[in-house]
């Protein structure tokens, strides 16, 4: 039994993967807090419908070994975007504001915790429904 067959669990694990990747991006920003000409990155906001559309895109089928596979790259991660208008830029061109990044990290952690709690609740309900009659 794969929990991902059910819509709500797929949604929740997708969201958790998004938070996971966002944490990576934010830590990369923080570790580059003093790199010249570095602009902070952030993930595009999580949108389930957009996510579905991304995964529903089909690759080109090839009949022979030598056929080209088309130009659509199959992406595994979520979309990563550079900050368009950063809050402030240092003279060296670095645009990372540590306070801002820390706020984002905190928000990310909080939302992740919310999703894990909801996940636990849903799994608990499934288990309740599966208990044999006493």
């Amino acid at each position, binding site marked *: 039994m794969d929990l991902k067959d*059910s*819509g*709500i669990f797929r*949604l*929740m694990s997708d*969201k958790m993967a998004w938070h996971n990747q966002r944490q990576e991006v934010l830590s990369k920003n923080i570790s580059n807090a003093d790199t010249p000409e570095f602009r902070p990155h952030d993930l595009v906001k*999580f*949108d*389930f419908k957009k996510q579905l559309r991304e995964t529903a895109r089909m690759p080109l089928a090839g009949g022979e070994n030598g056929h080209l596979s088309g130009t659509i790259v199959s992406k595994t991660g979520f979309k990563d975007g550079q900050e368009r208008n950063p809050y402030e830029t240092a003279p060296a061109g670095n645009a990372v504001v540590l306070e801002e990044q820390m706020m984002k990290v905190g928000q990310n952690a909080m*939302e992740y915790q*919310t*999703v894990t709690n*909801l996940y636990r*609740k*849903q799994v*608990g*309900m499934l288990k*309740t*429904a599966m*208990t044999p*009659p*006493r």
Partner: protein
Amino acid sequence: MAIPISGAAAAYASAATRGLSAPSRSGPTEGPSFGDMLESAVGQSIQTMHKGEEMTAKGVLGKADLADVVNAVTNAEVTLQAVVNVRDKVISAYQEILRMPM
């Protein structure tokens, strides 16, 4: 998720009409029968579960107030536990009847 639940509801409904409404028709009371009561309770429980799932999805997407999400999920959990407990009671009562000496 939704398909087995509605299937169970249909099974409950058919059981209620087949097994329980027949004796109530012959009885002198005119109020809603035990079967009707059970059916409406089960229907309400299913609605609560659906609401819990919907609010979970909204909460994950950040489209709902967190307090509402917690409320709905807790409601769903408690309702499910109540339903499971009632089911256990019914089954144990049935087994008790089966064990009765003829």
